């Protein structure tokens, strides 16, 4: 048995991996060998820590020193100074951990200390490719308890009492869903996991899959027991190769330990799990389309009823839950329904993982109790807006959701409050926007996504969203017409009412929501042909202030299309016909003499 005195955790989430965390690990191993420390220090590759803006992340225990933005070249120093001599390398520490000389540990950091990591409990803590580490932190204990102490109906009861609602966006009470399926006559039933995570910018599920795959396996096995199923499928998007790899390793390890397969723990319960890959369609994250895809057909939604709990995969009773929903389940079983119900608000229990992105300092993954205000997320946990810019809105729910303006910053985040504001929780994407974002452009961005991803089965979505996009394109190109906004509203209302599936029914939301809170911006675009935020290129131009210009010529040199001309002692001028509005000149001007004229 190896007695290590120090564990060095290196983040192996996709974000940090693409920043060379794998190389960091091998460099560590080399440096440890050089210094003969390989038997004292253990390098552990973990899942995502969540503070992605500052990756690659390395945390050294037992001190809990969190190094951020670590480069391969830094490893020698970390090994020789910290691991060998005990001197923490201050320049690499996360800036918050500096505190009059001594290092604040991970748990004291503002980013982490306001979080309550339930679904992400093991991410950044264990090595996801080692089942023993999962077991060490009470892994499979819930499963054992369920199999030996609880009846299926009791498991469902616990879930109902806990108040857990689907974390994929629908917010449907999980216990109720399982109950519907359990009530179906005995026979073949299926347990499915929606790991398609199609919302752009969302990576909550990815982090769980990469950082704690066993929590999903355990939860699905518990679900199988509760509803009477012996077969599960995890539908993962093919764009997550690391997640797929770690899931397969985890499944194989679980099988090896007899935690999957026949007669688990010596009972007569058997459960098997298989991975199915997606093929690049956002619509396959929709429940019935996902099942149709697993069946080998073109991934298109089917009308409901019949609901999947009654007739799902291959017409058999099926439950489909999101990865994050499953990740909560072992904890609920171990700590009890009351514990979970004690977190959050009256109708939204527990925690929620958010992928925070956009104009915010601490981009990354956070898990917070339901009811945390948006203000706390943006300013306290998120570290505020970079450059000291003003907060404009936060988009939740991705292409299906809406934006929340500054006037509602103190809204406690939960399912119902967001819907009242015209948005929705969605899967947990939270994009922050500042004064430099144009809300019409944002709506167009989300609609472009939905139009591209529409499956094409029903006319409201297939043609309707396209027509909405065409109107928005005209508006952002300065060609808005009278009646355009009314047309958008009519289309939005009817698409929402008649589309066949959730994709179509929620596609108009970003437009409706931005119209609700930022109508003046739309009016400026349509009537005045102006873009107040200075984003829509056809309605703004870059102008050089003749008084401030010092004729240094840097802008002209930087301009990629040679649109700027001038000479010494004469103010430079931008040729608007040639200008492609890239903004480099404004960025590079040392005298701040170039500005956006809207």
């Amino acid at each position, binding site marked *: *048995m*190896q*007695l*290590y*005195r*120090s*564990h060095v*955790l290196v983040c192996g989430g996709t974000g940090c991996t693409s920043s060379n965390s794998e190389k960091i690990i091998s460099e560590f191993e080399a440096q440890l060998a050089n210094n003969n420390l390989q038997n*004292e220090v253990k390098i552990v590759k973990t899942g995502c820590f969540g503070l992605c803006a500052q990756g690659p992340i390395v945390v050294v*225990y*037992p*001190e*809990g020193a969190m190094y951020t933005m670590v480069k391969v070249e830094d490893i020698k120093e970390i090994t020789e100074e910290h691991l*060998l*001599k*005990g*001197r923490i390398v201050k320049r690499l520490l996360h800036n918050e951990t500096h505190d009059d000389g001594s290092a604040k*540990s991970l*748990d004291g950091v503002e980013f982490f200390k306001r979080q309550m990591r339930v679904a992400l409990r093991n991410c950044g*803590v*264990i090595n996801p490719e080692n089942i*023993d*580490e999962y*077991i*060490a*932190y*009470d*892994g*499979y*204990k819930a499963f*054992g308890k369920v199999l*030996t102490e609880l009846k299926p109906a009791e498991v469902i009861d616990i879930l109902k009492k806990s108040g857990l609602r689907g974390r994929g966006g629908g917010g449907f009470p999980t216990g109720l869903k399982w109950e519907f399926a359990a009530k179906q006559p005995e026979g073949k039933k299926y347990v499915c996991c929606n790991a398609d995570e199609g919302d752009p910018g969302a990576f909550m599920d990815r982090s769980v899959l990469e950082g704690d795959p066993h929590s999903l396996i355990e939860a699905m096995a518990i679900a199988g027991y509760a509803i009477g199923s012996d077969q599960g499928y995890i539908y993962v998007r093919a764009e997550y190769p690391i997640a797929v790899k770690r899931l397969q390793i985890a499944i194989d390890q679980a099988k090896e*330990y*007899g*935690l999957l397969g026949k007669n688990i*723990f*010596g009972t007569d319960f058997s459960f098997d799990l298989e991975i199915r890959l997606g093929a690049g369609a956002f619509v396959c994250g929709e429940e019935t389309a996902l099942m149709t895809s697993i069946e080998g057909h073109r991934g298109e939604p089917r009308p409901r009823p019949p609901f999947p709990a009654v007739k799902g995969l291959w017409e058999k009773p099926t439950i489909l839950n999101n990865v994050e929903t499953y990740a909560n389940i072992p904890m609920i079983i171990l700590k009890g329904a009351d514990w979970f119900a004690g977190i959050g608000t009256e109708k939204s229990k527990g925690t929620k993982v958010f992928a925070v992105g956009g104009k915010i300092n601490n981009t990354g993954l956070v898990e917070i109790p339901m009811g945390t205000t948006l203000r706390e997320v943006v300013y306290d946990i998120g570290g505020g807006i970079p450059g000291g810019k003003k907060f404009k809105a936060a988009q939740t729910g991705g292409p299906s959701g809406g934006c929340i303006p500054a006037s509602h910053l103190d809204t406690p985040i939960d399912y119902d409050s967001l819907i009242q504001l015209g948005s929705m929780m969605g899967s947990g994407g939270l994009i922050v926007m500042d004064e430099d974002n144009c809300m019409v452009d944002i709506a167009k961005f989300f609609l472009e996504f939905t139009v591209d991803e529409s499956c094409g089965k029903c006319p409201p979505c297939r043609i309707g969203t396209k027509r909405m996009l065409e109107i928005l394109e005209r508006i952002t190109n300065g060609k808005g017409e009278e009646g355009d906004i009314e047309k958008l509203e009519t289309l939005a209302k009817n698409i929402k009412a008649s589309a066949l599936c959730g994709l179509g029914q929620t596609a108009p939301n970003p437009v409706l929501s931005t119209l609700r809170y930022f109508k003046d911006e739309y009016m400026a675009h349509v009537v005045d042909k102006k873009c107040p935020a200075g984003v829509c290129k056809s309605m703004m131009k870059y102008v050089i202030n003749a008084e401030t210009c010092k004729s240094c010529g840097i802008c002209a040199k930087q301009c990629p299309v040679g649109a700027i001309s001038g000479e010494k002692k004469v103010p430079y001028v931008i040729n608007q016909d040639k200008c492609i509005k890239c903004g480099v000149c404004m960025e590079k001007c040392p005298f701040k003499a170039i500005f956006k004229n809207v």
Partner: protein
Amino acid sequence: MKSLAELEEIRKKTLDQMSLRKGNDGMRVIVGMATCGIAAGARPVMSAFVEEINKRNLTDVTVTMTGCIGVCRLEPVVEIIDKDGNKVTYVKMTPEKAARIVAEHIVNGRVCVDYTIGEAEK
């Protein structure tokens, strides 16, 4: 695995190996590991602490290193901080003294006064 008991075994075994990653709730043993300390033999001291603590299965005691504490002539230096923040500094440490400190101070709460810096200063 055929029983919950087997699962529990794996859990216990692995947890011990991972105890380093939990928060520092219990006692902390801080070994000075600067150049002077290493030269004076701090590494075997550290290993001795780690071995003793593991042998006795003391899961809430962590062993860390630190840089130069300052009293270089008295190296190897080890500081023991309990959960209330009370600090005891041991000097001129050896692996044998380490074992005794684990037994008496860490387990039984009795400071080994003769090894402390106070005594050495006299």
